[in-house]
């Protein structure tokens, strides 16, 4: 029933207490929110929990949401705040990070090459400091503008550009060192 409705209609219906409409919103945004959380937290179980909590919190606070504002930015901001809290909490409760397993595909040779490439990128990305990693995730996974990233992370747009540029430079530096260890 809700599959074909536009986002604003779904949000209005959710505001009126129609939880099934909120279920459709969750379905539409869960991958994007999860990708963001995974990029922030580097742990799949944590990212799943925060994704769940972000949609709960968004629903409970839905009356504070301005329908004229872009919904994705709002829900990403909630998720980013929860991730930040979780990272602080982790200082006292460290967990094993980076527990991804890649899915196989039909062509083993191509799969191996792709997996190796992704492992290299993932390892390098995860070794970046949080301040550089998170703008890269928001830019290249969530496809957000510099301004939207700045809004979500509460930093100026210029800082976002600098961190993305610097983050990529750091990644390239790591790849160069891998190729030429001397």
């Amino acid at each position: 029933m809700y599959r074909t409705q536009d986002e604003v209609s779904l949000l209005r219906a959710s505001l009126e207490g129609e939880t099934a409409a909120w279920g459709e919103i969750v379905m539409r945004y869960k991958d994007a929110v999860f990708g963001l959380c995974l990029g922030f937290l580097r742990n799949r179980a944590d990212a799943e929990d925060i994704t769940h909590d972000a949609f709960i919190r968004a629903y409970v606070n839905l009356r504070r949401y301005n329908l004229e504002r872009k919904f994705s930015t709002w829900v990403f901001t909630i998720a980013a705040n929860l991730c930040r809290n979780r990272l602080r909490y982790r200082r006292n409760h460290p967990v094993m990070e980076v527990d991804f397993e890649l899915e196989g595909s039909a062509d083993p040779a191509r799969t191996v090459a792709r997996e190796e490439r992704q492992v290299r990128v993932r390892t390098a990305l995860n070794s970046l400091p949080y301040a550089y990693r998170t703008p890269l995730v928001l830019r290249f996974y969530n496809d957000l503008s510099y301004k939207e990233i700045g809004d979500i992370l509460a930093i100026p747009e210029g800082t976002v550009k600098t961190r993305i540029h610097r983050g990529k430079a750091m990644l390239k530096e790591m790849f160069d060192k891998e190729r030429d260890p001397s």
Partner: protein
Amino acid sequence: MTLDARDPLDELLRETLRQDVVAAAESLAGLEERVLGSLGDRLPKRGILGSLRALAAPTRGGRWGQLAVVGATAAAFLLVGTLLSDRLPFSRHEEPLLLGGAPAAATKSVASQSPAENGVLFILPALNARVVSVVGSFSEWEPVPLSDDDGDGIWTTQIPLPPGRYEYAFIIDGRWWGQDPSADEYVRSFGEYSSVRYVGGGGDGA
């Protein structure tokens, strides 16, 4: 080193980040049901501004009639509160806010005073504990120690907090204890509960 718009690294990053989500697709299946199950019958909170807007909105009965009812109700509560104030087991001006072990209704009414001045008292009965602390969003989840100076097993600390929403938990001899009985609500993350306290009746959940 140049970072042009068609940088192959951009595509590598996209591919890798998307693959991580694809790999987790199985565990994300059914998230909608889990979210709706957790929500239960909870409806979005209207908030103070929303309530005021609703109050100010035109109604069939007329706004003045509605305001008169609200005013009369407030006056009645004020009168009852004044009459009962001498019978309360504590004076609101002398005793700090109790977060643990006290009825939630009583703590809420005190919390709405000036917690920044009085401080919020975290109190926990833990008879055989050796070290007790509280961690929360107010301390960036860094431990704040509780003390039991008279050795009666009641551990306390007082923390000045501005109005807002705070998640917290106690750490008793290194063990997480997240369900303070007088918390306003609980949240469950990563398999553990945390308590939530609204100080001063405000706070932004986002």
